[in-house]
């Protein structure tokens, strides 16, 4: 292949690319802007930033020791951004989306909860008002609230005056519970033991023999230790790594399809004919185009990653060689995709619309916007035929997942396969005859 014409073609294409301010902004500025935006949304809890607190409002209409306790312990919960406002204000804010969940503790809640605790009386209701667009958070709030309510109710029942009253009441109404007599006897024994426990506590308090604070109520009998699993203990998930991979791929595909459309414009202006009048093979002409598109695509990806590395501390935690091979294979795939647009497109205008749609579909299904793991499983299987999926997964593997060189082999080979396929179809469908 003659090298002078090849270099001249690539040089000319790059000169034209950089002369086009719109193309440069679309390839280097826009992906960085959108990548930063998505990264900041999806970066999730990382080692140095606190998890986002859920906006929760509690309305205490009860004012009992138990409800006071629930409010006090919810206030210390690091999952909640707690506000104490009126019921009307709560309803209004949930409707406006400013509050995710509103909890209303109705009048008589503490009393009824105490009774239900020992003797299975009617269970009181907690009213939860929630924003339907945050159903997942509702489940979280319900679970966390259970902990606070159980702790407050049991603490009051075992140590507070409400407990004594509840035990006395329960003992008085033992006959009316309708339980079989042996069970009535057993429950009576237990409640009497609780009364004995109360008197011991009172005695200890009056003599000052015990400096123990009030016994806590029932608490969760376990705590959790949470660890985000990546390949190394010191690697933190970085949402920016994913979003910059996704946006880099989207915009490098836009760049190469733009260059594919340039070929159609060259044809329309009669320039392509002029190139063909030189003693250059068709293969050299297409190779020159492929090479310049690959270079532009690779620059787009590397510039946006360089930005993410410097500004958002994205690391190539896997293999650098693996990263580069996935990046080059992705660029080659995108270049042959551009060639395909030039081969199949008729007018530049029509090709522009179709190719924009094709790129958007491809990157959306490839997981460039939202990661594919949130797709339903049938869709996850289906998107394996989308080249962008392999590019996103390959780059994820080499960056925050920190998988070694072996993890780059499959994405690289599959992407090269797509490149070969696109390239062959483009070459066979390319129109050469023209007057």
């Amino acid at each position, binding site marked *: 292949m003659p090298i002078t014409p090849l270099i001249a073609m690539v*040089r000319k294409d790059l*000169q034209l690319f950089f002369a086009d301010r719109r193309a440069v902004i679309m390839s280097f500025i826009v992906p960085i802007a959108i990548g930063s935006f998505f990264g900041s949304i999806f970066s999730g809890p990382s080692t140095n930033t606190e998890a986002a607190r859920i906006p929760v409002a509690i309305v205490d209409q009860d004012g009992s020791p138990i409800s006071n306790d629930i409010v006090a312990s919810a206030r210390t919960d690091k999952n909640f951004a707690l506000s104490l406002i009126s019921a009307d204000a709560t309803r209004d804010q949930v409707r406006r989306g400013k509050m995710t969940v509103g909890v209303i503790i109705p009048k008589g809640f503490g009393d009824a909860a105490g009774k239900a605790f020992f003797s299975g009386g009617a269970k009181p209701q907690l009213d939860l008002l929630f924003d339907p667009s945050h159903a997942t958070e509702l489940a979280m709030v319900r679970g966390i609230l259970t902990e606070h309510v159980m702790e407050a109710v049991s603490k009051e029942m075992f140590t507070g005056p409400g407990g004594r009253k509840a035990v006395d009441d329960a003992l008085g109404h033992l006959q009316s519970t309708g339980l079989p007599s042996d069970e009535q006897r057993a429950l009576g024994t237990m409640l009497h033991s609780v009364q004995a426990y109360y008197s011991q506590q009172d005695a200890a308090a009056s003599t000052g023999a015990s400096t123990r604070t009030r016994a806590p109520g029932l608490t969760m009998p376990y705590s959790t230790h949470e660890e985000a699993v990546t390949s190394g203990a010191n690697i933190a998930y970085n949402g920016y790594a994913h979003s910059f991979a996704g946006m880099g791929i989207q915009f490098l595909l836009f760049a190469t399809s733009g260059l594919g459309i340039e070929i159609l414009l060259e044809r329309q202006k009669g320039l392509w004919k002029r190139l063909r*009048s030189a*003693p250059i093979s068709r293969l050299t002409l297409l190779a020159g185009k492929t090479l310049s598109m690959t270079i532009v695509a690779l620059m787009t990806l590397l510039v946006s990653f360089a930005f993410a590395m410097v500004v958002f501390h994205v690391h190539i935690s896997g293999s650098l060689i693996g990263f580069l091979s996935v990046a080059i294979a992705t660029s080659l795939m995108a270049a042959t995709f551009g060639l395909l647009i030039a081969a199949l497109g008729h007018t530049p205008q029509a090709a522009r619309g179709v190719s924009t749609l094709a790129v958007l579909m491809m990157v959306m299904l490839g997981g460039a916007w939202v990661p594919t793991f949130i797709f339903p499983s049938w869709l996850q299987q289906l998107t394996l035929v989308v080249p962008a999926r392999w590019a996103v997964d390959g780059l994820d593997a080499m960056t925050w997942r920190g998988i070694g060189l072996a993890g780059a082999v499959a994405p690289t080979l599959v992407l090269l396969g797509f490149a070969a396929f696109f390239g062959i179809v483009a070459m066979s469908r390319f129109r050469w005859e023209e*007057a």
Partner: protein
Amino acid sequence: MLKINNLRKTYKDLVAVSDVSFTLERGQLVGLLGPNGAGKTTTVSMIAGLVTPDRGEVLIGDHRLSGDTDPVKRRIGLVPQDLALYDELTAHDNLRFFGALYDLTGAALEQSIASVLELVELSDRASDRVKTFSGGMKRRLNLAAGLLHDPDILLLDEPTVGVDPQSRNAIFDNLEALKQRGKALLYTTHYMEEAERLADRIVVIDHGNVIANETLAELHARVPAGPDGGRATLETVFLMLTGRSLRD
């Protein structure tokens, strides 16, 4: 130097070029005339190797043109009907690109760029972007791009479209100088007075067929003298040969 024999090209049912033959010698300018859609550009494209003829052959010297990479394509310079220039590049960068397509590099390339720019009088605008050029300047640069690799045969497809009389005259002077230097020129045009001024021979084609192939004098002799007793214009000859019906 250039001999074309029985060229034919059809697009589906449409016969673009039916049967065209003529020759072109060193130091000669042949005018290729014909109404719109006659098949002029298709003929030029077949000579330049852009379109494969269905039948017939193009001989350059004694060599039959074959394939995209045939080195004999170096002996041909194409100046296309549409301006083949990159508007966003400077004149110099355009010429450097087209020169490199013919494997020109380094000092040799710079030297040819300088000499063609001088010929078309654009040396002082070499580092300006083509999009800042007037129509006439673009046409002159388009001509210069076809001359870079010093071809023996120049194919000029309507090289003066949309050009003012000054630039047109400058181009004519260029072409006459090239003819003096022994180049063979094929000049496609609708303008009769251009053919009258430049052509040694005139080939008229219509509906893809050659309907006249003669010198200017022979062509004029075909029609009787006009009412004022002077020579019939080439315009009259042309209309007589091709008819008055509209084309396209």
